[in-house]
């Protein structure tokens, strides 16, 4: 399957959602053709994954236009788009809602979700995108346990199981 991951946050950004999208791409690339469309200055590379980056160091109207165009190009050949919530991704999706797409909407950034509620327009955009989605995901797997110098090596069983379940729940749609 050709999967597009549309995200407002991507490493080097340190937000958990950024690391989540990178981990998602690393896992999906083993079976799928993955493209990430992200806001980033110099994104961290993932072997075998195409990354289209829109630099955030541009005024809002310019970066939104560039992101919408980048997403449009990526969506033309995609089987599925997984979009992480946030106005900077939701608005381009809203503008591209005329396109036929299988959309999985990841409402995984709770702070962006709360900020969205403060404004009528962003609420409207969010609701429209949500209606357009074939599935809505509201939780991320936990963060990878860290290997700490003065502690025993972490048990990653629960972490791996959480990812297995997450991928099965999220990406069985359309397969």
């Amino acid at each position, binding site marked *: 399957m050709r999967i597009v991951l549309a995200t407002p946050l991507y490493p*080097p*950004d340190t937000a958990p959602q950024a690391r989540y999208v990178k981990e998602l791409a690393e896992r999906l690339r083993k079976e799928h053709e993955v493209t990430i469309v992200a806001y980033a200055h110099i994104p961290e590379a993932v072997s075998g994954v195409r990354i289209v980056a829109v630099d955030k*160091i541009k005024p809002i109207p310019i*970066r939104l236009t560039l992101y919408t165009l980048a997403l449009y190009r990526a969506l033309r050949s995609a089987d599925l788009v997984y979009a992480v919530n946030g106005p900077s991704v939701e608005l381009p999706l809203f503008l591209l809602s005329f396109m036929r797409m299988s959309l999985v909407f990841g409402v995984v950034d709770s702070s962006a979700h709360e900020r969205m509620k403060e404004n009528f327009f962003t609420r409207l955009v969010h609701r429209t995108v949500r209606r357009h989605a074939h599935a809505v995901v509201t939780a991320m797997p936990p963060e990878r346990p*860290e290997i700490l*110098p003065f502690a025993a090596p972490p048990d990653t069983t629960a972490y791996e199981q959480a990812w297995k379940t997450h991928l099965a729940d999220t990406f069985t749609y359309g397969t």
Partner: protein
Amino acid sequence: MEHNAQESWELYRKQELALLEPILESLRITLDAEQPHIGGERYLMHAVTTVSGKKLILLGRMQDSDKRVVIKATRDAAGKREIIHERECRAFLKQIRFAYDTFFAPEELLFTESGGFCISVQAYIEQPSTFLARPTPMQFALALKAFKAQEGAHATTYEHLRQIRTIFGSMNARAYLASFDRFSECVRGHEANAHLAPLLAQARTFLTRNERVIEQYAGFLTHTDFVPHNFRVVGETMYLLDHSSIRFGNKYEGWARFINFMTLYNRELEQALLTYVRDNRTPEEYEALTAMRVYRLGEILCYYTKTLPKSQGALRTLNEARISFWSSLLESLLTGTDFPDAAVEEYRRLRDSLRSSEEKKRQQELH
């Protein structure tokens, strides 16, 4: 030269204290009899630091509450700018919109201008033991927490950068390279350092090769002088004492300063932090950390080069030994070889034998 710099600092200290003490008395503040932050090699630090102005950092007590306080006071225009800048940084950090974590700062008890002095009085943070006296695993946990808090503030957008530009400085890869060139020029400019030219050229090539990763991890809040004498720990809380060294730059600039410092003070912690980055972060991040360590070593070499014309006797010998020590570390980083513990031990022995008793006293409670 040493005597000129030292005598001029001592004269400044005496004159300023004579004027300041009555003002502080009127503000119901009594100065401690011992003032470690204006003794020892403090005069040398002042003589070679071009960015900061003259100021006194004093310890005292509020007469009404008997609260122990730290007083920063100056009549010097550049010193005033520095105190005001630090205050602005502290205030801005509290309301920074895109910070996921915040820093704790000692409570500001008084800020005033009186008798030509700009005076900032902050609560003295008592800590049960110095950072370096704690067990290394605890030091590691505290340092990691602090670095993660700094990394939480990432200025990535046009709006963020516009917001911070007026308060904090901001460095990208090009600025780091240009800055390193200035350090390099400063070091090579002293005849005693002619032999360091090839090493500095090698360091510059290394930084150029890593320009992309330096840029990739730029835009993060970083404390460029994050070392134990600039923070205090009470329980789980870390208080930053110096807010003027905060800027937006490479994520690993603060790490680099801290790790280079720990090469000298706690090698176990140095290795733990390096291992942590290697095990938990991307290879590019480890490269960025190494590049920042190289950059910061260029800076420290320049710093000690500037002390050479201002020192003589034992202090001059010590400053030459410092240049030799940090350049050996730079060489080992560039060649990817382990820096021997014996080199650290030898340097520490020499340093301790050359330090003045006043400086030893100043250092006691510092870290």
